[in-house]
């Protein structure tokens, strides 16, 4: 159970240590102290380990994450979990802009608020924000889902492709080609699964949400290709 003090071990050394982990390693839990807003902490991890960061992280924390469970006991800077592939990233505080940007898979949970462009260009990641998200969230998001328990800023889902958006609070305004869609049982079930995955099973009622999606007027959508999204 190694504890890494980033005032002692260099960030590059620490990240290299994570990248060098052998398959089936016994080191499955890393605690990071003194992150002090450093950038790219635990970026590019591809191992089924847990990394717990005590404090505030800088830009691109847990970027490109694959398989790891990364917990930030603090807030995260721009691009937390950007381009994540799988695994789980949990921000206990707030997240800055572009949280979960271009993510392909896995689950990103933010306990506080996320700033602008949360889930921009998402390609399969599931993002759950317990607070509110800023403007231009889910911009051009292609697949995956964004669940917001609070409110959203302006232009939610602008130029949206096939990502699914669920908002419990107020939507300040919708972006181009983003429309409200009926929340049917199948959506409530899918949403229930997401809430459960984020540890909110039974605490939040899926029927309190509104669903938003693409009006499919801005891109060449063909029903026949639906399975590809």
């Amino acid at each position, binding site marked *: 159970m190694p504890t890494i003090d980033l005032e002692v071990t260099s960030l590059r050394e620490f990240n290299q240590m994570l990248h060098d982990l052998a398959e089936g390693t016994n080191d499955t839990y890393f605690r990071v102290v003194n992150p002090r*807003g450093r950038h790219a902490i635990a970026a590019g991890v591809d191992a089924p380990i847990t990394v717990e960061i005590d404090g505030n992280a800088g*830009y691109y924390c847990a970027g490109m994450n694959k398989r790891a469970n990364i917990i930030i006991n603090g*807030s995260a800077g721009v691009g937390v979990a950007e381009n994540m592939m799988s695994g789980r990233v949990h921000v206990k505080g*707030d997240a800055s802009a572009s949280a979960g940007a271009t993510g392909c898979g896995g689950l990103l949970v933010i306990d506080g608020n996320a700033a*602008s462009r949360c889930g921009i260009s998402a390609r399969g990641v599931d993002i759950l924000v317990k607070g509110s998200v*800023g403007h231009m969230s889910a911009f051009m998001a292609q697949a995956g889902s964004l669940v917001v328990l609070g409110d959203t800023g302006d232009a939610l889902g602008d130029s949206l492709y096939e990502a699914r958006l669920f908002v419990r609070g107020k939507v300040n305004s919708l972006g181009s080609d983003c429309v409200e869609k009926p929340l049917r049982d199948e959506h409530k079930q899918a949403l229930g699964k997401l809430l459960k995955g984020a540890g909110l099973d039974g605490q939040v009622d899926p029927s309190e949400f509104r669903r938003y999606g693409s009006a499919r007027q801005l891109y060449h959508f063909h029903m026949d290709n639906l399975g590809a999204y």
Partner: protein
Amino acid sequence: MCGIVGLFLKNKALEPKLGSMMSGMLATMCDRGPDSAGFAVYGSGDSSHVKLTVRAMSCAFDFASLARRLSEAIGSPVPVEIRDSHGVFTIPEGAEQTARKTIEGLGDDVRIVGLGTRMEIYKEVGRPDTVAKRFHLENMAGSHGIAHTRMATDFAVTTTGAPPIYTGRDQCLVHNGSLSNHNALRRQLKRRGLSFETENDTEVAAGYLTWRLSEGDSLGDALKHSLDDLDGFYTFVVGTEDGFGVLRDPIACKPAVMAETDDYVAFGSEYRALVGLPGIEKAHVWEPKPATVYFWERH
């Protein structure tokens, strides 16, 4: 890229430490702007005097002799505090125009970079931590200050027109971003009688605010108007005699993070710039909203 920081002290007991707190913030921002740096500090001052910060092109410039010339022209003693390439002259209230004329008469060797009851402005080419040391920022006291580190992308690395640019008495601006309509705006402002030294967009932003203020806007209103008239992406931090303000453009793609405790309000381009501040672990840390004017003032 560029980095900007701002620090406003709520707790007067910290005022002797303003400079050392700011120099730590500035040093971290070397990574965002290694080419040059500038900072404004709001220190001591009284209403019967005005402080003129004068930057000389060469460190060998004889500030003491300029002080003597100013004393003769004004008819009363003019103290000067020399810090590296900058001299801060304390001029009696009302003698400002005479002092200006004398200084401007020296040609391109010197330039007035700041004017105010409490504001002093310093800027130099070089790594920001080195620049801060040259001016002994760490020893400066004051109630608040703002600073800028520059990574030159669009314009030449000079200190002419470099932030902080003073926009009026005790007012200055630092900026991270780039304006796309600065040429058109510069032409419009020139027609209104403003003059510009550089092709730099920050100078246009500062000129724009100066013009709005001269039209009778409050600083808050001038910032609000800038949302309509400035096109581009930017984060502004504006210093005034009593405090500082923050404004991000509506798209807000330039970074900004703020922290507040009982003792201070701090602004940084990145959270890293704030980690050396006392009690930061318990501070309220948040990201300022786009197109929203924030202000903190001394009461």
